[in-house]
């Protein structure tokens, strides 16, 4: 049966080539498209994570819902000890976020002023790496402020200038001081660059009366794929009034938006597959109808309708297996290569900056399981496409089939 199927494939070259080519191209397109879509989404998330959020945060319960000073972590040292003892935690640092007014002689602007531990923060955000002018903060800085470039633009200040900070201390008294701008940063995320300013936490603590306090502690992990396990472990170790929150929860809205985008991507591919399905089915149908007399002859010499079904199905399985295997052999290296060497499209970061894209690279995502199920879907479509033509072929009796013109 196998050799007969193989002979048929070689004999009906036109059908074989067209079906093979369609299957190969649609499978390859699907693999590359999904790798591209997943890579794009992962890139967006990673950009946002790298810029500021990182892998997980430790909060006092209630802070994420209510915010403000009533829900500050009031014993950062104890959280520090827990994080140090938790396997899988790579780096961590406390942050104190407070909304304040930054003012010059002529201009004022509201800003999120973040007290950070400058050196530790290098490992946790892109603040230092996004230096635009001047310099980044140093651990021994006092009244130094590091501004987003858009915020500096609004305040019309540059490194060396002085801005007044007026905010509310954690005891709700006024916190005010003059800060010298030591540098500006540009991440490419407009909102981030327009609203954030960093100061050294040690100095900020004297101003905000926030020694040993933090809005939250940010942490990175050794392996992002094992984040759930680390978070679970951390939750067991933390005091009951604290919570460990992974990035997927912190960026819930963005994750959901990407889910919706993926659905639309799959719908687009679905429409394409419907077309491919019918094209393959029509080709198979025409091929099988054209072979009616041949199939009638096979039935006459002893093959049952079941055998005919097996033969035709085997032909399709051989074709689909070859085409899908080849598409995987070609598509997987493409996904792998472009994961390591992302495609660069000049200007894409500017166009998509509100989605968190901070550079012009678009990497693909190489994932063996995804590639296999992509190929599997196209394979299944091929098998489904041949069922109706086979059913039509089996309707004729051997005599009717042999008399078919």
């Amino acid at each position, binding site marked *: 049966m196998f050799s007969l199927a193989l002979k048929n494939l070689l004999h009906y070259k036109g059908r074989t080539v067209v079906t093979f080519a369609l299957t190969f191209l649609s499978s390859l397109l699907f693999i590359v498209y999904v790798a591209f879509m997943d890579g794009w989404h992962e890139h967006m998330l990673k950009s946002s994570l790298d810029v500021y959020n990182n892998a997980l945060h430790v909060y006092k319960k*209630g802070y994420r*819902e*209510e915010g403000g*000073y*009533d*829900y500050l972590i009031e014993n950062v040292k104890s959280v520090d000890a827990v994080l140090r003892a938790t396997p899988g935690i790579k780096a961590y640092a406390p942050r104190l976020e407070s*909304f304040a*007014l930054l*003012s010059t002689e002529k201009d*004022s*602007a*509201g800003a999120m002023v973040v007290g950070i531990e400058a050196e530790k923060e290098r490992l946790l955000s892109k603040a230092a790496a996004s230096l635009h002018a001047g310099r980044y903060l140093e651990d021994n800085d006092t009244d130094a402020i590091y501004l987003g470039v858009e915020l500096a633009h609004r305040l019309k200040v540059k490194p060396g200038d002085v801005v*007044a900070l*007026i905010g*509310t201390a954690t*005891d*709700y*008294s*006024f916190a*005010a*001081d*003059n800060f010298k701008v030591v540098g500006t940063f540009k991440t490419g995320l407009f909102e981030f660059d327009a609203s954030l300013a960093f100061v050294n936490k040690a100095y900020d603590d004297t101003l905000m009366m926030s020694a040993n306090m933090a809005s939250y502690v940010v942490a990175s992990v050794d392996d992002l794929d094992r984040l759930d396990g680390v978070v679970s472990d951390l939750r067991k170790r933390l005091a009951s009034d604290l919570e460990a929150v992974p990035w997927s929860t912190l960026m819930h809205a963005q994750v959901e938006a990407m889910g919706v985008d993926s659905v639309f991507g799959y719908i687009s591919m679905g429409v394409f597959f419907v077309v491919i399905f019918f094209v393959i089915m029509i080709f198979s149908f025409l091929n099988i109808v054209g072979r009616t007399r041949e199939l009638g002859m096979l039935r006459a010499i002893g093959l049952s309708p079941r055998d005919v079904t097996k033969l035709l199905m085997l032909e399709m399985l051989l074709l689909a297996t070859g085409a899908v295997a080849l598409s995987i052999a070609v598509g997987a290296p493409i996904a792998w290569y472009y994961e390591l060497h992302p495609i660069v499209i000049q200007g894409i970061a500017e166009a998509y900056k509100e989605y968190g894209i901070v550079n012009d690279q678009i990497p693909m995502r190489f994932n063996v399981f995804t590639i296999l199920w992509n190929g599997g879907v196209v394979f299944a479509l091929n098998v489904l496409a041949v069922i109706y033509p086979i059913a039509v072929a089996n309707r004729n009796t051997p005599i009717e089939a042999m008399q078919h013109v």
Partner: protein
Amino acid sequence: MRILTLWLIGAMLLFASEAEEIIKKVEDNFRGENVYMKMKMVITSERSQRTVEVESWAEGKKKSFMKILYPPRDQGITFLKLDQQLWQYVPKIERIVKIPPSMMLQSWMGSDFTNDDMVKESSISDDYDAKILKKEGSVVTIALTPKPDAAVVWGKIVSEIDTGNDTQVHDVFYDDFGKEVREMFYGEVKTFNGHHIPTVMRIKPLEKGKGKNESRVILSDVVYDQGVSDSYFTKQALKRYSR
């Protein structure tokens, strides 16, 4: 049918006009020609309780000046409201700062009052349409909805007013989605030079997680219509009267 329609429209206009008249009386009663006050604000939150003491001078709708007397860390910080703009002077940095629009919804001094409250408080009759909801004895409940072109924070305010002495009894503030955001209680009405004033005001946020929060204002040393020097209502005053 036409008579009924005319009657209904007439009744609605009459109610609206009466409501606006009541609001205007309350504002005139509270504002006076000019007023000097000392007040204590006790701010209670989840984590702490603190007291702020303030001295204020005001003239009409558009001018007011405030100076913080207590706590010592904040002593000498001054605020000037001129038209609908808010300015602030902080002695520590010797800087006069205009509070920008983006900061108007921020808490004032960590209380449940916002900067916007400090500026817009006396413009209810200008910015809101008033409508009587019910009358019970001398207490009238009025719904205040923003006028179409008014730049206001609240989606609606429902105010209970004692028309016997033209003072507010209770206000509920709603956001743009009709959700209750905070309520304000007024009590201990006293008379100063013919003005009936609630000397204790209590504001309570109704948002989830702020159950323990409350800001209580207690007025003392209230002096009405004795004249306030124009020198308070200039930007120079922020620094001069800070000492």
